[in-house]
């Protein structure tokens, strides 16, 4: 099914400034079965195989709802590395975290993403949520690691 990602992200952007909804989403972080009590988020139209991915993105969005994200997460983390270095911090530590992120398998990916998004929030670097949703949907699609490769280019080529 194509085109399900845009409507879902559009929903998230609508609740960007709704602190109650964001708080409810944050409460679901780490839970296998989200609390859908209030029905504020509609998962209709999302394919079954993508349910976990949309849950992950929704929770990350709740952590860091800032608008204006660039191409892919690699670019955002590249910007993080530069800002960290400019502020006197360790670029290498960002690189290590990024290497751990792109090395992660699908099961561990949400954990690594939470850490990375927290860091991006700390430096006020936005995330392109639509791009992120599509990317994690295809994280282990084939052996070519196309998503990971694109993130790597986004991270290192911005800096070359």
């Amino acid at each position, binding site marked *: 099914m194509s085109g399900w990602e845009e409507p879902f992200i559009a929903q998230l952007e609508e609740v960007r400034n709704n602190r109650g909804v964001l708080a409810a989403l944050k409460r679901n972080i780490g839970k296998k079965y989200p609390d859908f009590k209030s029905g504020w988020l509609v998962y209709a139209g999302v394919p079954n195989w993508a349910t976990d991915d949309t849950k992950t993105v929704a929770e990350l969005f709740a952590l860091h709802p800032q608008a204006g994200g660039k191409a892919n997460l690699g670019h955002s983390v590249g910007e993080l590395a530069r800002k960290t270095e400019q502020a006197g911090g360790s670029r290498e530590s960002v690189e290590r975290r*990024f290497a751990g992120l792109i*090395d992660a398998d699908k099961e561990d990916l949400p954990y690594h993403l939470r850490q990375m998004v927290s860091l991006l929030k700390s430096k006020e670097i936005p995330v392109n949520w639509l791009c992120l949703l599509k990317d994690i949907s295809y994280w282990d699609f084939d052996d070519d*690691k196309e998503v*990971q*490769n694109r993130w*790597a280019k986004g*991270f*290192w080529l911005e800096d*070359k």
Partner: protein
Amino acid sequence: MSKMDEFNLAYNPWIPCDGKELGLYETLVNSHRLKEIRDASPVVTISLYRLAMALACRIFDLKDVKNWERVWKEGRFDEDAVKEYLSEWADEKHRFNLFDDQYPFYQMKSLESYKENLSDVSGQKNYSVMRIIHELPEQNTPLLFDHTSYEDGVVLTPREAAKKVVACQAAGLGGWIKEIKGDKSTPDAPMASGAVFLVQSNTLFEAIMLNLCNPDWFGEVVWDTSRKDSPAWEKDEEWEAHKGVNAKGNIVYPRRPTGLLDWLTWQSRQLLLLKEEGPNGVSYSVQGSGYLLDGISPRDCETMMAFERDKDSWKAVGFSKDRFFWRDFYSVAKSTSSEERGLKTLLFARRVSDRGLVDKPLTVSVIGLSKKQRNVFFWNREDFSLPQELLMDNDVASVLDSTLSMVSKIGEKLEESLRWFLEMSVNPQVKSMKDKKRVPWKVGANNSYSYWANMEPVFRHFAKTISPIPGDDRVDKVLDEARKIALGTFDLVCGDLSSRTMKANALARSYLEDEIGNITKGREG
């Protein structure tokens, strides 16, 4: 010698032509009806062509360009002339008998005393006829082409022995030869050191004629003109007259060829098949040092091989296990306009085409060995189309040259980026091409192999259909293909990614993309 022990190369069938075997006489007089000589061994094939060329050159005095043109226009070798010559030299003087009592063909009868050494097993091993066969191993070399071992030995029929003798003289490998007392080594035969370019057309006659170009027609004469030029089978044994000793005290036989006939039949070693009486084949032979070019190099005499600068000398262009030959072929082919470097047979083909004597596309078969000293890695034969446009038009040759140059540069940049990728994968501290932390990485395997393999059909098609029309987009298409293939090869080699290699991949691939862009825009990378 009984009749059964004779083998007359003029009339007995032994030369493979179009699926059948013919003697020299039939080969020449029917050459306008035959397509080609072709043996299972490319080395034997090219050696037989040289022999046929020498015979035709001798009979019709084709060293004279006027005679060449006359015979070319006749379109065939005159049967009566061939018959008359062989009547004298084969029938009366027995110079074409492989096992003759006095003048065995391409051999030296005075070596017969070495037959005494066959009485024991070690003598039999030392004089095994395997030593004159390119595709069989010697005692201490690895088995490559054939699992016949020295212990097994071989028995050659007279037909096979004849082919091997001719090939040994024309393309025998240099190296240690200690079968004859006092001899230490012999140099490579004329065609052993590089690839031989054989121009071909529709018939064997045309191939013989097109490759019969005299170096004299191109410049300074290097021959020993103090003696009459003649082919090897017309000479009496004259090794003693040239015998000398070099600075290391080894026996050598330095001399200059007397002319084209001598060079085409150059005796690169003293040789004799040690045939036992009876109908059995040949199991033994003895070899000694051959003639050594004195004061000149093969480039001065040879018209069928291309040479390139190697420091202060010229080295024959040849096959290599690390490099696809099409790159060298087109580099040689586009040099026809530059006489200093150009391959003389191609220059000659151009002159002949200029005069309107040839107006069809030609084929060039390139035949040779890839070797290191006496170790043969492989032998090879590759055929290339040679359109008239490429042969005749300087503008077309120039387009080919510049396109080949860009394709080669893209290949070099690919190899560079692959090396960089490997270095960064091993040492993540390396950040750029100029980083001092870089350790020069000798990439053992040829990782860009796939690029050159995939570019070959693209470039061959381009060269075959090359056009002098300005604005033709064929060059752009070739470069576009080169770009895709280079990036595809990079992704193939660097595709198995981990977080460590992804950084290397990103940087090295980006470098490659930028460099290809620079090259295809006509700028240096």
